[in-house]
């Protein structure tokens, strides 16, 4: 085992070398060899998952992420890459779940350097999820409109046919009445559609004063103002002060603003376009 362990470690390091040079095929082969020698090497699974993501072998990459998570459920990168793969495969719901887990682990583990990466990925997943939902909603509204118009058109044709025995003027009146009903129906749908395009506004108090985005994870400072965790963390690292009061401020002073977070997430659930706003 000792021999195999040493060999596995050497192979993993070879893999890392290839990975740094972005030679993902060669790196993947090294990690696979390492895993033959040590089937429990978590790091080799995690690194191979990244190679496979970049090689667009998404299913295989997910299998590797799962192998990591089975051994270490709090593995930030495994959740992150699992989510990236799921998103690439169009599974937005599960991708969002793992994106959130990755972000939360990032916060819990104090991995500030990954904060931006995981937050932006979470943002992309949420936005994608909204887009899918919105596309479905609009498609089903259009299908319903076509169906209703079809029903009415057939009814009008029937009325015209029934009036076939009447005079020219009677038939014209029936047709005109039908066309008016058709126009009314189209108008109803038209007005419903216009509602989708009303002026879209985001309440000021949901917006982070640093990025001007709607907040995903607002934290509150001792002075009582809230910011997106990622942006205020970045400013604290640089200046160490509260942006509004200029008082000294440390990361440990930041507390989650849970109520505001609820409000932001409620708003975004109803208004997913605001991800892009």
């Amino acid at each position, binding site marked *: 085992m000792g021999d195999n362990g040493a060999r596995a470690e050497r192979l993993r390091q070879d893999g890392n070398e290839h990975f740094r040079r972005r030679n993902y095929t060669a790196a993947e082969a090294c990690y696979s060899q390492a895993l033959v020698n040590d089937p429990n090497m978590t790091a080799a699974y995690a690194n191979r998952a990244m190679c496979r993501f970049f090689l667009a072998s998404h299913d295989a990459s997910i299998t590797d992420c799962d192998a990591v998570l089975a051994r270490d459920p709090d593995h930030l990168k495994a959740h992150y890459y699992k989510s990236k793969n799921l998103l690439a495969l169009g599974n937005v719901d599960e991708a969002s779940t793992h994106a959130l887990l990755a972000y939360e682990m990032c916060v819990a583990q104090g991995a500030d350097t990954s904060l931006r990466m995981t937050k*932006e990925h979470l943002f992309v997943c949420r936005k994608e999820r909204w887009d899918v939902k919105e596309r479905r909603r609009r498609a089903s509204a259009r299908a319903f409109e076509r169906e209703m118009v079809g029903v009415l058109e057939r009814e009008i044709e029937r009325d015209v046919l029934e009036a076939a025995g009447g005079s020219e003027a009677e038939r014209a009146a029936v047709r005109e009445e039908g066309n008016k009903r058709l126009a009314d129906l189209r108008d109803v749908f038209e007005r419903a559609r216009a509602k989708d395009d009303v002026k879209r506004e985001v309440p000021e108090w949901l917006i982070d*004063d*640093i*990025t*001007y985005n709607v907040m995903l994870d607002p934290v509150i400072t001792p002075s009582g103002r809230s910011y997106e965790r990622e942006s205020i963390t970045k*400013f604290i690292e*640089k*200046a160490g002060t509260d*942006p509004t009061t200029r008082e000294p401020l440390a990361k440990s002073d930041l507390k989650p603003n849970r109520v505001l977070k609820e409000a932001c997430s409620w708003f975004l659930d109803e208004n997913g376009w605001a991800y892009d706003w």
Partner: protein
Amino acid sequence: MSAGMSGRRLMKELSKIQNDGLPPGIELVSSGESDADNSDWLLDIRVLDDNPLYKNQVYRLRFRFPKAYPIEPPEVTFENRPDRPIPMHPHVYSNGIICLDLLGSQGWSPVQSAQSVCMSIQSMLTSNNKNERPEGDEQFVKMNKSRPRDIQFLYDDNTV
């Protein structure tokens, strides 16, 4: 993702200006959209009261935004043109460099914006009645080779 965080934020500042307009005496001349590599903004400002030092004058400000804006401050200077002089002020050098604590890395706050910086500069001019340049202006203008943000100014004069 984009190279820095500045792009999205500037886009939003711009759309806010386009929707809500700017305060009196401040006008956006250009927002760098003509050149992708050049994110400079140009704004014109006027002093609104009858201060004889600035009456009937328009001044042009150039904003250069670093990639890390708004975590880092923009570099803001007055531009000298035939119809846009450099205003006389004890904190404004004759080459257009402005000595204002909120533009230094110590005094900057990311909740500031192009608009709020213009308003601060506007009020800095409004409240001034000294018809003079900073001490050592001639020497400074001749010798200085550093970018404004790298200059260590002394903010010890709180009377202006």
